C-alpha cells in the first residue's frame, strides 16, 4: 500500500503544480460569476438556469481534468523514461497502475471539492439556502463516476500509444454514454435481430455514467436520494473501475518496456 500511496502522491503534486487545473477553474469561475451578475427576467430569485449552466460547466471541467490528467500518466512516464528507474525499484506494475489510478482519482476529488465549494457559495449567495446533503450526494456520485472514467482512460493509455488519440477516444466514449446510454435499449427495440441482441448486450455491458448525473438534486432542490441507493451506485462504479483496472493490469503485465 505504501508504494501505491507514494505513486499517487506524485500524481497529486503534478496536478496542483501544473497550470491545467487553475486555467479550467478560473475559466469556469469567471463564466459563473458573469452569469451570476446577470438578472434574468429582472428577478433576483431565479437561479435555476444559473445553477444548471454552472453545473454543466463543472461537469465538463471535471471530465477534462480527469481524462487529460490520466491519459498522460503512463505515456509521459514512457516518453521521459522515468518508468524505468521507477520499475527498477521494488514496485510492481500493478502497484504502479493502482497508484496512478488512486492519484488521479484523489486529484480529481480535490478539484471537485474546489468546484463544488465555489459553486455552492455562488448559488447559496443568491438563494440563501444551503442543501448540504444534496451537494454531498451530487458531488460524491460525480466523483464515483470519475473513478470509472479514470480507470477507462488508464486502460486506454496502455492500448493507444498516443495520449491525444486516447483523450479523443475517451471523450467520445464518455460523451456517448452520457448522452445516449440511457436510450440504447429503446433503440434496440426498433431493430431487427441480431442487431437488437447486439445493442442490448452493449446496453448492459457499458458503464452507465448517466446514472451518476444527479445535478437535478441541486438545480431543483429536490429531496436527497436514499443513502442506500448512493452506496449501491458507488459499488457499481467501483466494480466497473475494478474491471477496467484488471484489464489494464493484464495489458501492462506482459508489455515490454524498452
Amino acid at each position, binding site marked *: 500500500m505504501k508504494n501505491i500511496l*507514494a505513486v499517487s502522491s506524485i500524481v497529486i*503534486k503534478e496536478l496542483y503544480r501544473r497550470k491545467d487545473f487553475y486555467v479550467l477553474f478560473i475559466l469556469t469561475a469567471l463564466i459563473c460569476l458573469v452569469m451570476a451578475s446577470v438578472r434574468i427576467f429582472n428577478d433576483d430569485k431565479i437561479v435555476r438556469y444559473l445553477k444548471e449552466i454552472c453545473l454543466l460547466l463543472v461537469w465538463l471541467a471535471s471530465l477534462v481534468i480527469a481524462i487529460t490528467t490520466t491519459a498522460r500518466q503512463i505515456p509521459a512516464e514512457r516518453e521521459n523514461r522515468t518508468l524505468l528507474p*521507477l*520499475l527498477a525499484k*521494488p514496485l510492481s506494475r500493478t502497484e504502479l497502475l493502482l497508484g496512478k489510478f488512486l492519484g488521479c482519482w484523489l486529484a480529481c476529488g480535490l478539484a471537485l471539492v474546489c468546484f463544488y465549494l465555489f459553486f455552492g457559495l455562488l448559488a447559496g449567495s443568491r438563494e440563501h439556502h444551503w442543501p448540504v446533503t444534496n451537494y454531498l450526494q451530487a458531488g460524491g456520485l460525480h466523483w464515483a463516476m470519475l473513478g470509472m472514467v479514470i480507470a477507462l482512460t488508464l486502460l486506454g493509455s496502455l492500448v493507444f500509444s498516443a495520449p491525444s488519440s486516447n483523450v479523443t477516444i475517451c471523450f467520445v466514449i464518455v460523451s456517448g454514454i452520457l448522452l445516449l446510454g440511457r436510450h440504447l435499449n429503446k433503440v434496440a427495440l426498433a431493430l431487427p435481430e441480431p442487431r437488437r441482441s447486439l445493442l442490448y448486450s452493449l446496453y448492459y455491458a457499458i458503464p452507465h455514467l448517466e446514472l451518476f448525473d444527479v445535478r437535478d438534486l441541486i438545480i431543483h432542490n429536490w429531496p436527497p436520494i436514499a443513502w442506500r441507493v448512493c452506496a449501491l451506485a458507488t459499488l457499481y462504479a467501483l466494480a466497473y473501475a475494478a474491471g477496467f483496472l484488471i484489464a489494464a493490469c493484464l495489458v501492462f503485465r506482459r508489455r515490454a518496456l524498452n
Partner: protein
Amino acid sequence: MKQLSAAEPVIEIRNLCVTYRSRGARKPEPAAVKNLSLSVRSGEVFGFLGPNGAGKTTTMNALLGFINASSGDAFLFGTNVREPIARQRIGYLPELTYYYKFLTAEELLRFYARIFGIPKPETERRIDLVLKLVELEGVRRRTIKTYSKGMQQRVGLAQALINDPDLLILDEPTSGLDPIGRMKVREIIARLKDEGKTVFFSSHELGEVETVCDRVAILHQGQLKVEGRVGELAECHQCNLEQLFLKVIGYHQPGPALAPSDLENAGYRGASSLQCSPTPKLRQAT
C-alpha cells in the same frame, strides 16, 4: 532475499535469449541477445561493452525485468529477476532520462526513498549524503526543469544511490556529459568501488572503462564475444581495450595483431572463436 557469500555472484545470467516480436511481422526478428551467460561477483566493477545495437541495454532490461526473456534465466542476489524483491538492493541509472520536471531534487529522492520503504529520518540523511556526493546540494530545492543535462544525469545517479544499493546498474552513465561531468561520474564509481559496492555498467567510453573496471565483457550482435579482467589483457598483450574491442567486433585498424590463443591464455572466455586478421587492414564488419 537470499544472503550471499562473497564468492557467490551478485548478478547471474544463464543462457539468456531475448527476441523482440514486431506486430504483423511474418518472420521472427533476429535475437537481440543470444544464449548469454555471465556472472558478476560482489565488489566488482564490471564493464559491459559493445557497439550500438549489440544487446547491452536489452540485457540490462531483461536483468531488471522490463522485458521478458525468450529463454534462460537471470538472477540478482540469487533471486529471479521476475520477483520485485530482487530489486530491493539495486540502484539503476537508465540512459537519457528526464525526471519529473515539476519536482525538486529532494522531493524526487524522497519519493524514491518512500518506495524502498526507508524510514523518514534515514531518508533525510541519505538525501543529504547523495546530494553531496553528486554535488547538487546547492540546487536541491530547485525544480528539475531548471537543471542542465549534466545536473539531470547527476540527479539520476543520486536516485540510483538513495537506497545505499549493494549493486549499481548504470546504462551509459556518462552519455551526453561534458569532460568534467564524465570525470565526476568516474570519481563516483571509483568511490563506490572503494566502499565495496558492485557496479555493472555499459559504456562506449573505453578509456573510462579501462580506468575503473575490474572485468569487462564485450557483446556483439547479441553474443558474448569476450569476458575477462582488464589488467590481465593489458599486461599480457600490450594491447589496450580499444584495440581489443575493435578486433572483437571485426573492425580492424593498424596495430599489433592479437592471436585468439593469447586471449585464451589471458583468461578471456570464448576468445578462440574470434577471427583476428593478422593484416592491418581496415574494414567494417557486416
